[in-house]
């Protein structure tokens, strides 16, 4: 069983270490992937995140998007949406940045053993679930069917297209992608990501689902999975809230009685649904 790793116990979790970008990959406009090295980095569990900071600008939570089985390879994928993410995404190879972590819980891959696994990702959400996909494929015999459904706004915004093609070519994972709209010439599926669920076969009574993407997309995906017969307690999603401390002290990431940083970011739909509905009132 993979273990949820905590920041180095000798170190103060509020004090960042100096990490360095060893490789910078432009994925699509406004999205970059960094391979990084950081002192005393001991690896992570799929689903965990780090606090990445640009000195003088700020610090934000970013999930780890590389394989957990390669603890030396620290990978993050960042979309520039505001001041801090833009400053981070603008960093060049060799640049230094602050890093605290890893924080948070992991995707419950152990409870999915022997079951069908449906991974639903939307937009940038493919990055935080990529470690779980690596895990599922590296331990393929531990799971029954493995299905990845990925939705993006346009074909040009789809992430990790090389890897998606490689996974599609495999016989032990079913991959379906869709976009909201496409220029003529796109031969793939067009429609909402939940519509892909109607075309794939899985046993809902023995399915664990891992969902990651913008909150609204995750809500619709959870409802579609429940409609398909998947138990709410078997639908897991990674939540996003603004964070400061990332260790359960400041209350910045509070959602009802839970702190996303300390109790999550991964929760099951049975627990999350009432909290989300409450927040909407």
């Amino acid at each position, binding site marked *: 069983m993979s273990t949820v790793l905590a920041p180095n116990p000798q170190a103060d979790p509020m004090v960042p270490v100096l990490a360095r970008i060893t490789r910078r990959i432009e994925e699509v406009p406004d999205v970059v992937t960094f391979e990084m090295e950081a002192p005393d980095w001991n690896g992570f569990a799929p689903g965990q995140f780090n606090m990445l900071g640009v000195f003088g600008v700020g610090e934000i939570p970013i999930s780890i998007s590389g394989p957990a089985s390669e603890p030396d390879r620290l990978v993050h994928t960042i979309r520039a949406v505001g001041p801090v993410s833009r400053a981070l995404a603008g960093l060049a190879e060799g640049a230094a940045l602050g890093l605290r972590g890893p924080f948070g819980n992991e995707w419950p891959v152990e409870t999915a053993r022997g079951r069908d696994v449906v991974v639903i990702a939307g937009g940038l959400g493919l990055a935080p679930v990529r470690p779980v996909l690596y895990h599922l494929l590296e331990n393929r015999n531990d799971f029954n069917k493995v299905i990845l459904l990925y939705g993006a706004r346009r074909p040009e915004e789809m992430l990790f297209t090389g890897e998606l093609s490689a996974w599609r070519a495999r016989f032990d994972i079913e991959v379906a992608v869709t976009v909201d*709209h496409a220029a003529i010439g796109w031969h793939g599926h067009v429609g909402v990501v939940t519509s892909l669920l109607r075309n794939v076969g899985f046993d809902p009574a023995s399915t664990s689902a891992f969902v990651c993407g913008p909150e609204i997309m995750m809500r619709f995906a959870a409802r579609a999975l429940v409609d398909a017969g998947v138990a709410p307690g078997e639908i897991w999603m990674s939540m996003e809230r603004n964070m400061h401390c990332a260790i359960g002290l400041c209350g910045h990431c509070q959602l009802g009685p839970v702190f996303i940083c300390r109790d999550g970011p991964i929760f099951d739909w049975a627990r999350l649904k009432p909290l989300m509905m409450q927040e909407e009132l």
Partner: protein
Amino acid sequence: MAIEGLERIVGAHALFAGFGDEFLELVSGCASNVRFRAGEYLCREGDPADQIFMVRDGHVAQEIGAPGQGRMTFLTIGPNSVIGLAWLVPPYRWTYDARAQDDVRAISLDATCLRGKCDRDPALGYEVMKRFMPAIVKRLHDTRLQLLDVYGARS
């Protein structure tokens, strides 16, 4: 093809699965088999919506042109789906182009024929309506999600 053969095919499509035999016979009277090669159009925007296509094999892209944005595909559908919900609503015109993405086999229902039968036999009309409503609601729901631009939005 014999009507009995068509009845079986119409009844095997998700749209009319489990439909009563008597009604199936009436609906099948308006049906014919059609094929489209990849790239061919099933219908063009602005044309009279005088057909409903029940797709059996292959995929169909629904396309529309927007000023300044060129042409784009806003929906693709596959086997067991339906194209042509506009048959129900005057002025019965296609509001998009539908193009076969690969070779498509479908059942075409003559919309004028079906409307006539539904008008004459309200019980049939109600049953047919109940079959089309879920497809319409699903399409509405999916369109709402697309409008919400869910992949970019934070909440």
